[in-house]
């Protein structure tokens, strides 16, 4: 039931074209667990890098005043809360603006409302908080008939395959 369109498309001649056709055929469908997990892993890496940057900056500033440079001797609560804050801010900004974070951009997925519209700032921040404090909600995607995570069910959001389709189409034409 998932790819009736693929058979109608012109026969692909190269591997890359075959991929494009396959990707096209699934645009707008609900993304599955692996794609979303991949996107989230990339996002976690981004957040860790950003946090590392913050800690480094803080260490440099601290060094200027105390002549004592240490990067990783911060209390755990500080590191953890900084991680949560950065993660929430990062996810919220991505989802509220385009529905995509960096990880979702790479994985080619987008968060929208069940109505198909963009999720607003409030939904985005609640979703971000829910994900940061209970990432296991994503696992429900495996079981859900609509590939929905617990967060999706609570906030009526969906994650779709979305490759910025116009670009893809232009490439197929070319």
């Amino acid at each position, binding site marked *: 039931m998932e790819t009736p369109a693929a058979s109608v498309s012109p026969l692909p001649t190269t591997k890359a074209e075959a*991929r494009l056709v396959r990707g096209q055929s699934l645009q707008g469908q609900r993304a599955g667990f692996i794609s979303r997990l991949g996107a989230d892993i990339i996002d976690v890496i981004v957040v860790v890098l950003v946090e590392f940057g913050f800690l480094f900056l803080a260490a440099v500033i601290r060094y200027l005043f105390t002549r004592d440079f240490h990067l990783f001797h911060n209390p755990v609560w500080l590191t953890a809360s900084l991680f949560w804050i950065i993660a929430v801010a990062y996810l919220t900004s991505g989802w509220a603006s385009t529905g995509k974070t960096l990880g979702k951009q*790479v994985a080619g997925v987008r968060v929208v409302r069940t*109505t*198909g519209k963009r999720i607003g700032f409030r939904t985005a921040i609640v979703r971000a908080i829910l994900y940061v404090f209970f990432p296991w909600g994503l696992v429900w995607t495996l079981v859900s008939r*609509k590939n929905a995570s617990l967060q999706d069910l609570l906030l009526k959001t969906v994650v*779709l395959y979305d490759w910025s*389709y*116009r670009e893809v*189409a232009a490439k197929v034409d070319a």
Partner: protein
Amino acid sequence: MDHTDDVTEPHEPQDETASETNLLGDAVEVLFGLLSPAIAAGHGVAPTVRRISNWGPVRGVSGAAGRTLEGWRIRGKTEQQRFLEALDDFIRRTLPGVIDAVFDHIDVNDIIGRIDLNRVMGEVDLNALMAKVDLDAMMERIDFGKLTDRLIEEVDLRQIMRESSSTITSEAVDAVRVQGMNADRFVDRLVDRILFRKNGRDLAGPATAVSELTGGPTTNGQDPHPEEGSEDGDAGRIGVAASDDQG
């Protein structure tokens, strides 16, 4: 007759070196050229001289003179040897005493004590030195913007960046995305089979999102999604209720 051969020999390299404009070489060659008559004369005279020196009386005189000279030479040599040994002996005997005397008069510790290292270091003001190196001015003088522009112009970096970035998005990212899609579907089917689901999943997205995604200006004709998308979208919208998923 063989003199003439000998005479011409020195002339031969003259031609070779002349081309090299080597002044010294030229000079030597010229000298050889000038001397060549004399050398030729010498060659010519040599047999006569030899004959004279081999003549009995001459040989006796020159032999006596040679013996006398040899005697003087040996004597001079022994004298020289004796003098060197005496000098050596003298230095060996006197030098330690001299050095001791010198060091008796000089207190090295006192000298070291007098050098105030801290003051020396203090006078070399590293900070002042660094302050004199005006890094900002230096950086200002180097127009990095212009430099980068020129570099990019030279290497045509723009083209490379454009090509590589487009290649990355089209090839690698597409591959990753499609692999993700395939993995998604595989996992979906696997879980469905484990749960003994008969109807599989309903993965159609919201109609508006689908039509927005598939109804781009360049996709018409080629992409059959629009009508199919709206169909799916209806199904999607109906099935969106969260309660559906709990089953």
